[in-house]
């Protein structure tokens, strides 16, 4: 056993990116990737709060079978807005734009992303998209579900489909530009010696995510444009009465929609690799398998979209193909889980909050992934399709997976972003609370789905009440679990103890520079010789 040196009395650097410049202009017109990460952090935290509040209201309403608070019409608008906000304005941008923006250039040894102005432009486009979308929510919202199925969304829905569609359309371009920027950065901006197989696995995951951004987002953009066109002129693109095919919309939507869920989970998987490596002080077991599984997921994810449409009127034979391919995409995810677990073997497992989140992620994502098999297999999907089983499954992946990863990553890199430490005890407590609350919220929903309770029901049969009340109780614990980090992070940004460049004793370029980093990241371009250079110090000079 060897040791790493952890600095004893860390001090903040005199000049760093946070105090290099003052005033609102220095933030709103910044092209520093680290400051843009903060802009995104504030924006998506706001959206998360709104979406979370909506979820809370929904869970409250479902305490009573006939609805505790509101009419079905309002409930329908709530879950639509909850879905769209969480997917397009929180989860999709969360890890890429906050942690990705902050870390990609630092992790590969660059001074900034390839196109800093474009990076800022993406944020403005994102804010414009968010404003247009929130405008539609405030005007009265949309009641179509986030899937916007035709002909409901084009002909029958009364809500503000048009402005909502425009909002999402615009947000797509923000994502495309971010993905483009990341891909060019990862390709062309790597420091000397940073070969592909020395890249941190977080970078591999974000690379795969960027591929999906670039190839999937334009399809949803054009599909939403068609929806808008159909809604304004009613020309029959998706209307069977005029010869249109409503199932075409589902094809176009899910061609984007399924890769989209990998946009949400892949970055989180990347964060996971870093959390486990840092939390165990160990190189990730089977590095190349984990790296390639990210790329494999990105590629196969584009060919499985029809498993959302087994019962939609799609051809039986297409269903078989989609089902088989869906199983194929499950394998790379399984490989990742096994490798993270194997990394812990004979590691030095810390019990700090980032590692606790990682452990939570492994557990919840395993359940989320395995229950995905129920929905990928043709037979079981017949009964479980569009029930709470689906809701539970994707929340296990999205909340249990993506958000756990996001929070874990935020804890791991918070000292790097602010130069301050967060209170560890509170963080562990919040993590346990999130884990427990989450399971109580979404565990019962698996049973509800098996019983046959359909999703998107504002009122439901009385025999489902007990499980629904359990779920709502869990949601309140979950809400507290999310509020606590908000408070202690805010506190620590101002009053937290100084962290020092490498509070975790972790490896990677980001831990070699001061916390917070200087505006240019590196005074001297680093030269890389190895990835995850844990192990005997003397072997890795340089």
């Amino acid at each position, binding site marked *: 056993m060897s040791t790493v040196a952890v600095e004893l009395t860390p001090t903040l650097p005199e000049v760093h990116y946070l105090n290099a410049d003052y005033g609102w202009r220095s933030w709103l017109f910044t092209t520093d990737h680290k400051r843009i990460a903060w802009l995104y952090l504030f924006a998506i935290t706001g959206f998360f709060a709104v979406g979370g509040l909506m979820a809370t209201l929904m869970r409250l309403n479902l305490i009573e079978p006939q609805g505790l608070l509101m009419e079905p019409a309002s409930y329908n608008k709530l879950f639509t807005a909850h879905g769209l906000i969480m997917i397009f304005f929180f989860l999709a941008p969360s890890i890429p734009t906050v942690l990705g923006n902050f870390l990609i250039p630092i992790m590969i040894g660059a001074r*900034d992303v390839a*196109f800093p102005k474009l990076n800022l432009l993406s944020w403005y486009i994102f804010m414009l998209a968010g404003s247009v979308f929130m405008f539609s929510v405030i005007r009265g919202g949309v009641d179509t579900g986030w899937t916007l199925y035709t002909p409901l969304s084009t002909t029958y829905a009364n809500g503000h489909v048009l402005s909502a569609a425009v909002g999402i359309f615009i947000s797509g371009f923000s994502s495309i530009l971010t993905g483009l920027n990341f891909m*060019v950065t990862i390709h062309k901006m790597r420091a000397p010696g940073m070969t592909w197989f020395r890249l941190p696995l977080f970078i591999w995951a974000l690379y795969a995510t960027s591929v999906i951004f670039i190839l999937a987002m334009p*399809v949803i953009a054009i599909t939403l444009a068609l929806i808008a066109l159909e809604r304004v*002129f009613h020309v029959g693109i998706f209307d069977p009465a005029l*010869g249109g095919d409503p199932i075409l919309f589902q094809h176009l939507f899910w061609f984007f929609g399924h890769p989209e869920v990998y946009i949400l989970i892949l970055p989180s998987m990347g964060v996971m690799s870093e959390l486990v490596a840092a939390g165990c002080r160990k190189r990730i077991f089977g590095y190349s398998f984990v790296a390639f599984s990210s790329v494999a997921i990105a590629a196969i994810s584009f060919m499985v979209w029809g498993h959302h449409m087994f019962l939609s009127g799609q051809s039986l034979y297409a269903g078989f193909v989609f089902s088989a391919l869906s199983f194929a995409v499950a394998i790379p995810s399984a490989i990742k889980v096994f490798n993270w677990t194997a990394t812990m073997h004979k590691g030095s497992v810390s019990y700090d909050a980032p590692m606790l989140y990682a452990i939570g992620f492994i557990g919840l994502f395993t359940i989320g992934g395995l229950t995905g098999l129920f929905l990928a297999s043709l037979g079981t999907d017949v009964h479980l399709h569009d029930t709470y089983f689906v809701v539970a499954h994707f929340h296990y992946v999205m909340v249990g997976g993506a958000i756990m990863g996001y929070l874990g990553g935020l804890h791991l890199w918070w000292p790097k972003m602010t130069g301050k430490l967060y209170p560890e005890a509170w963080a562990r407590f919040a993590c346990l609370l999130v884990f427990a609350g989450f399971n109580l919220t979404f565990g019962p929903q698996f049973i509800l789905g098996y019983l046959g309770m359909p999703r998107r029901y504002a009122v439901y049969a009385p025999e489902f009440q007990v499980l629904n009340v359990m779920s709502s109780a869990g949601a309140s614990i979950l809400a507290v679990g999310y509020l606590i980090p908000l408070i202690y992070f805010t506190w620590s940004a101002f009053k937290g103890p100084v962290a020092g460049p490498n509070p975790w004793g972790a490896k990677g370029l980001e831990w070699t520079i001061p916390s917070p980093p200087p505006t240019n990241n590196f005074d001297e371009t680093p030269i890389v010789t190895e990835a995850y250079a844990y192990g005997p110090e003397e072997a890795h000079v340089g």
Partner: protein
Amino acid sequence: MADAAHASAAPVAHQFDDFEQQTIADTFGMWLFLATEVLFFGGLFCGYSLYRNLYFEAFTAGSHLLKINYGAFYTVLLICSSLTMALGVRAAQLRRRTALMVLVSLTWIMGFAFVFVKLRYEWYGDYLEGLVPGLNWAPSRESMEMINHFHAAGPHVALFFIFYFCMTGLHALHMVVGLGLLTTLLIFAKQGKVTGGNYNWVELVGLYWHFVDIVWIFLFPLLYLIGGRYV
């Protein structure tokens, strides 16, 4: 690298190590953007191929209602503009400022002619003939005869025209954006910014312009020629 010598003349952004890295990154970014564009048009191409296979007669009839002369004219126009654009890039490479400005102006004029003829004559003509679903869908007697000749159903022909307007409309929008890019290029060329060794901006605009040309190369047969024109 030949560029290294010119690097001092052109500003290198702080995040790049040298001029070459900047050029490569810019070009690669543009290609990625074009990949996105392929899928952006791809959604429409997907819908088009689906309905074309469902309603082949209707799409053939619709195609016959378009004026093939316009289609061929646009195609030749865009090929010419692509040539002048490509020669423009070459002129920038060789640092010939006047030649560059002349060629870019020619490109601009042809691009503008495309958009102008499309809007003023073809689309407006379609509108007068009642061939615009959603705005004025009332095919004339001759059009109806053509539709009946193919035993096609009116609503399905309307579907053809929807895709015709969506696809050419999106293309025309890209042309307008291209005209804007050419205008900035012209300004930069006049200021001598792109003939001092850093011609990358010309190259990027060129890539975009050629891509828009390629889209048309596919739109022309798909919209104007499908099923033959021998009726």
